């Protein structure tokens, strides 16, 4: 493969993988199922990345104050 998928981050930034996780279209499923059949060693890392995308991103992250400050800036900039 031209771009190696070795780390969790490699999967997290892969457009096709992100769409596979959230959209589950038949062509994406077909592609990734085939990919994991050919590269079974990559599957555990991909599963971790999938778990992060689906379940771990709701953890506390940005503070409410930062969130509001950023929102004010966005709203000011679209006016």
């Amino acid at each position, binding site marked *: *493969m031209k771009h190696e998928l070795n780390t969790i981050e490699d999967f997290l*930034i892969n457009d096709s993988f*992100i769409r596979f*996780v959230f959209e589950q279209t038949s*062509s994406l499923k077909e592609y990734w199922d085939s990919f994991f059949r050919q590269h079974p060693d990559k599957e555990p890392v991909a599963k971790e990345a999938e778990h*992060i995308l689906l379940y771990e*991103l709701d953890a506390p992250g940005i503070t409410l104050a930062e969130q509001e400050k950023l929102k004010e800036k966005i709203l000011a900039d679209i006016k």
Partner: protein
Amino acid sequence: MKEQNENGMDGMTADADVSQLLSLLQKGDAKAFSRLYDLHVNMLFNYGCRLTTDKELLKDCIHDVFIKIYNKREDLGEVSNFKSYLFISLKNKLCDETRKRINYSDLSVEELNPIAPENVENDYIRFEAESVSCRKVKHLLNQLPPRQKEALTLYYIEEKKYEDICVLMNMNYQSVRNLIHRGILKLRSISAI
């Protein structure tokens, strides 16, 4: 998902909530935009934290992603999944900004730990075309409508970025994506004959 009551929308399921908010935003509803931000900013921030340690850069990129969403709100109907759209937009923005910084900096690429642009879709088309020869691919491409052929050729053969194809074909980002997507579907259907 955060509980926020100001719009009286709690109790709805998240997906229905988001798709309703998106259609309100398409009509220019600023409250819907604000609510979409509230619902997704923490998730995006946490996603970005996996890709960069620079929190200020990350917030700037989230800012730009939401500005783009607002400015392109009329095209949101084309978005098939808002979460993957958000993640991919933020990742692309982080990549672009990181690349800019590398260009303006004397630091080596390794030191900046840039986020490499991934493009498994190139491998995807290779996979799609695996069973057919190069000549057959060209033959199949010639059977596509001219715009689809042009978009697929630019993307997969000339390896142009979506942004560049938008300029070359004078189309917006989502329309280019859709065109390429339709082209792939069409290629698959004609190659199966």
